[in-house]
């Protein structure tokens, strides 16, 4: 039959069907990113004229103490929070997978924080961590772990600890669900084979469970790395970037340069650096996944 006429009719329908999304993509994703790239080569304070400066914004970035320390904060946060969130998520998933009753109660309580907004979780933790009145210090004191009040938000290291704790609490449920789904997908025959070989619990975990989760582990690490690099809400809302700018991040730099001092070109250059970093992480992930699958 006339497949040719069919596919010809298909042409128009196909194009019409992707058209509405294409308009959104072009107007709110593609054009903005291209325009952002363009203005990153200009000196533009929003009120004044645009002056072409070539790569000056980018070279200034290298010398910008504030940007450098914000970038460093972001990298350190990523290096600590990614293993923590992924590791704890995996441990929780293994724990829940091995119990027969009460699984759904556990799933609900671990996942619940994830549905709350960053504003709610930040405010809860700020109040939770208050010295003297907050519950957290009281719990630590009750367990005998501390003997004097801890002022979580007034010292840089502790402020980061607070941001990391609240981030783990908020997001680990997502990772936990992914790992749990991965665990449930491992065929029972794998474990039976292990039993026949006489593998103990540890060997079973190391030689059967972990390798079967490698794909999902890489996915989790990449998703977490990208998300961690974009951290802003928690540091804006829990510590306000403080004390003394110690918890400011890369997105904080975009926000302050763009919308407080209105240096549009400079802020765009920062945004591009952020995008490049994320691009590199995604490319490494694709590469590793390919090697893993072959």
């Amino acid at each position, binding site marked *: 039959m006339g497949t040719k006429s069919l596919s010809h009719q298909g*042409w128009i329908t196909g194009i019409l*069907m992707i058209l509405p*999304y294409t308009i959104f*993509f072009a107007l709110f994703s593609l054009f903005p990113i291209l325009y952002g790239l363009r203005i990153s080569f200009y000196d533009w304070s929003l009120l004044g004229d645009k002056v072409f400066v070539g790569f000056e914004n980018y070279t200034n970035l290298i010398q910008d103490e504030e940007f450098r320390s914000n970038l460093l904060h972001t990298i350190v946060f990523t290096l600590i929070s990614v293993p923590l969130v992924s590791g704890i998520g995996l441990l929780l998933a293994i724990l*829940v997978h091995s119990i027969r009753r009460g699984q759904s109660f556990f799933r609900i*309580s671990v996942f619940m924080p994830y549905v709350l907004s960053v504003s709610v979780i930040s405010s809860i933790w700020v109040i939770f961590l208050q010295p003297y009145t907050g519950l957290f210090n009281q719990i630590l004191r009750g367990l005998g772990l501390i003997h004097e009040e801890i002022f979580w938000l007034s010292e840089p290291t502790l402020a980061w600890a607070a941001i990391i704790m609240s981030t783990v609490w908020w997001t680990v449920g997502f990772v936990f669900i992914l790992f749990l*789904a991965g665990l449930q997908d491992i065929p029972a025959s794998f474990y039976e084979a292990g039993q026949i070989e006489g593998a103990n619990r540890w060997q079973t975990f190391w030689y059967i469970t972990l390798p079967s989760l490698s794909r999902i582990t890489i996915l989790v690490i990449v998703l977490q790395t990208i998300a961690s690099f974009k951290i802003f809400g928690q540091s804006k809302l829990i510590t306000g970037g403080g004390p003394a700018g110690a918890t400011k991040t890369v997105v904080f730099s975009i*926000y302050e340069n763009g919308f407080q001092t209105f240096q549009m070109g400079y802020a765009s250059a920062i945004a591009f650096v952020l995008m490049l970093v994320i691009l590199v992480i*995604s490319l490494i992930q694709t590469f590793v996944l390919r090697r893993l699958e072959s």
Partner: protein
Amino acid sequence: MMDRIYYYFIRIVAVALAIFFLIPVIWMLALSFTPEGQSVFANGFQLSFVNYQKVLSQAPIFGWMGNSLMVSVITTVLVLILSSMAAYAFSRIQFPGSKFMFLLFLSGLMIPAEATLIPLYLFMRDWGLLGTRTSLILPAVAGPMGIFILKQFFDGLPKDLEEAARIDGAGFFKVWYSIFLPLSRPALAALGIFSFIGAWNDYVWPLISISDKAYMTITLGLPMFQSSYVQQYALPMTANALAAVPVLIVFLIFQKQIIKGIAFTGGKEL
């Protein structure tokens, strides 16, 4: 014997951890029912609604939630319609440029929203949309993730499903909405949940776009309200509870579908 001890040990650890995860939320609720300055424990677990009355009379919490609901629902509906339509075309129709467009959208996955803040601000300002709820919806629809999730799902549906309908003379468009949409309900639900949570929780773009209190979403309005209560805990916590409880109720009702949806889309992302 050892196995049973081990099993009970694991269960006790699991229950302890589950409760530990709930503590901050329980603390939030406990503080919200305790008048400022009183101790939660001293109050003898009597529920006081005085904080709720105060917060509701001082901040348009319900108005903000209405804005959030409006923005999130419209975003989600648009994402579902536009992505499933495009995903269907990519999965089933051969047309010139389809490979190129698909790759173009795929590359869009690498554009983080944070990288488009500055140009979006400038565009919205020029178009007179800055500060409107529309400005929150439009960029959220441009994310390409839905297309990939749904295309993968559609690719997995057997071809003979639509062949009978095609032979009967149904057009591609009709096959999409009368066969594919009903069949892909689980995938659509998963994507819908993802879009909804994303739109509801968005913070940085509303922070930049919206300055009028009347158009704020709850995620944006909440910290603004709380910032005027520096050394008080009862009213800020009550505001948190007001913002969180509806979300938690929806979560508890649909928790099975939501968790399944996260496992489904999360595992397919990227």
